């Protein structure tokens, strides 16, 4: 789950990580008010959208006068960045930046740990730095039972800074970042750039946080920050029904049990010259209600012209699955052709039961996919 920069900033403040003063504004009038309130000679106006590359898209501007604040604020509000409409900006105090650094905490699959990643190349795209000059990236693996003791925070801070006064500010910031990360079940906490001001203060200028969806049940405060896009709402709605759904934009609606098999199905559709409309994992059992809900979801996509049901009957046997499908389809009326492929335990019995139905029955995954692609492309 992603949150906005200004929300991350609020969390930083809650944990004592220094940030530049700033206000979130939903219209130009508020931006002006924020500018006046701040009493700073310059402010940065930043689009608040759940995506990177705001700067390149013109979503970040420095304003020094009321006029500039007004101009930029109204320019940015309503702007489209990577398909997302900007409906709020952050008006933040412009600080005197002496130098910029990169610092983040992230869940690392390989070490199966939280890892602290740092670079003196701050303000840059960190993947680019990693690709071009991997030696400029420092990584510190954190033992979950040890955390970041003082010595480790200092050791890490010395990787970024050479002056003891700066290290003394940075080390506690690193410890606070980790506490925030842990206590809120984050999956990413990135400060880019972390800066040192000309006055010698360490400060987070841009912050980004993602959270572990699996942990939201124990993070109600974080969950309340979630603002799903239209597409995400649909995915969330599917999730609440026990599905895992992702819209893809093609014409062949897929209903599969299991994420891996669903991905393989999409891949094969493409391989066979078709376009999958979606990823849809309906999970374990195949009870009729679930199938009905899944069909509704697929048919709500007006682009879909074929539905492919690919089920592996394992613990739930194929004959039971067939029974469920037949029952479900007594309640579903659609002119769209349905291709069904059932494999696994009691495969023959299941397939026998489907004979004589209006379904297009396939004997193998390859056959099912060719049939669906042919039906879709006609």
């Amino acid at each position: 789950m992603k949150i906005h920069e200004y929300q991350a900033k609020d969390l930083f403040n809650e944990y004592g990580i220094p940030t530049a003063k700033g206000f979130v504004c939903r219209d130009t009038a508020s931006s002006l008010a924020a500018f006046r309130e701040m009493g700073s000679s310059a402010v940065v106006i930043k689009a608040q959208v759940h995506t990177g590359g705001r700067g390149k898209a013109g979503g970040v501007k420095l304003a020094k006068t009321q006029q500039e604040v007004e101009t930029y604020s109204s320019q940015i509000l309503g702007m489209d960045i990577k398909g997302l409409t900007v409906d709020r900006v952050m008006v933040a105090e412009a600080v005197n930046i002496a130098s910029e650094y990169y610092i983040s905490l992230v869940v690392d699959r390989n070490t199966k740990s939280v890892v602290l990643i740092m670079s003196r190349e701050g303000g840059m795209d960190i993947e680019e730095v990693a690709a071009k000059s991997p030696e400029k990236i420092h990584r510190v693996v954190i033992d979950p039972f040890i955390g970041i003791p003082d010595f480790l925070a200092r050791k890490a801070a010395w990787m970024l800074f050479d002056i003891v006064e700066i290290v003394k500010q940075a080390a506690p910031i690193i410890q606070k970042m980790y506490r925030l990360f842990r206590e809120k079940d984050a999956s990413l906490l990135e400060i880019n750039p972390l800066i040192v001001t000309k006055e010698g203060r360490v400060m987070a200028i841009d912050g980004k946080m993602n959270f572990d969806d699996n942990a939201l049940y124990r993070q109600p405060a974080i969950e309340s920050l979630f603002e799903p896009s239209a597409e995400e709402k649909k995915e969330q709605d599917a999730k609440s029904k026990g599905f895992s759904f992702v819209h893809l934009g093609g014409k062949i609606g897929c209903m599969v049990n299991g994420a891996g098999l669903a991905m393989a199905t999409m891949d094969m559709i493409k391989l066979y010259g078709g376009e999958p409309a979606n990823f849809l994992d309906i999970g374990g059992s195949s009870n009729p209600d679930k199938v009905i809900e899944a069909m509704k979801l697929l048919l709500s996509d007006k682009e879909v012209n074929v539905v492919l049901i690919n089920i592996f009957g394992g613990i739930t046997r194929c004959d039971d699955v067939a029974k469920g499908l037949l029952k479900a389809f007594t309640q579903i009326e659609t002119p769209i052709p349905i291709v069904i492929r059932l494999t696994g335990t009691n495969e023959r019995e299941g397939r026998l039961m489907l004979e004589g139905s209006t379904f297009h029955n396939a004997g193998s995954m390859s056959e099912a996919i060719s049939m669906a692609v042919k039906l879709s492309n006609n």
Partner: protein
Amino acid sequence: MSILIDKNTRVVVQGITGRDGGFHSTKMGEYGTKIVAGTSPGKGGERTPSGVPVYNTVADAVINEGANTSIIFVPAPFVRDAIMEAADAGVSLIVCITEGVPTLDVIEARRFAQTKGVHLIGPNCPGLISPGKSLVGIMPGNIFKEGSTAVISRSGTLTYEVVYNLTMSGIGQSTAIGVGGDPVVGLYYIELLKMFQDDPDTDSIVLIGEIGGDAEEQAAKYIKENITKPVVAFIAGQTAPADKRMGHAGAIISSGSGTAAEKRTAFINAGVPIANEPSEIVGYLGKGCGP
């Protein structure tokens, strides 16, 4: 032979009185797995309908029934504690089926298991099976067949699909393992490849990967350098869009990395043939694939 589980595997089921725990305990028992105990705090002293003794703690199950493997079905909020309990009690393998476990819980529990020298598989995995010997998981036992092809996979039904194809073609399995679909789980490709390389009764390996992370790339490198047995790979998610979680929490292309294309390239560079569809795997195995 096989790896991790065999005829001597004695399983304690954590959460045996729950719906899934009860159902799969019966299924595993029917397959022939030695289900020697279950745990359910407060129900110690009782027995399940199929006669399995229930204990209050895993430690009691280890002491009284000689359990050496645990399978976990407890709800996600209690998984961290359940893994730690099993690791502390002295089993040598923990298989965690539960999905939806917070990542930081897994990180802690896995680290704890590691310090105790205990193997963890999962969470969010279908478990593992050494056909004809022991099934510790939720896989449909009947689609498997005893043999000498190893299967390692991040997925459940896709594994079944692959295995079903193998079995139908007369290719049996030594051990098939679903490592789990979460970003952080226990045993993974490299540890398992090493075990299979050392297992005298495994003579080929099927590796089923998917998008997200770079474990496949690392596995490819490891195979090139260390594995002499033939390996065939399959990668799911070539058409997956970026930044979308494809069912599994771990199946996500983020910041442009973890794509299927990168993984396929890595395997090809390591001399590992890539199947384009699950059914092609049989062909490669038949041909005697491998580096």
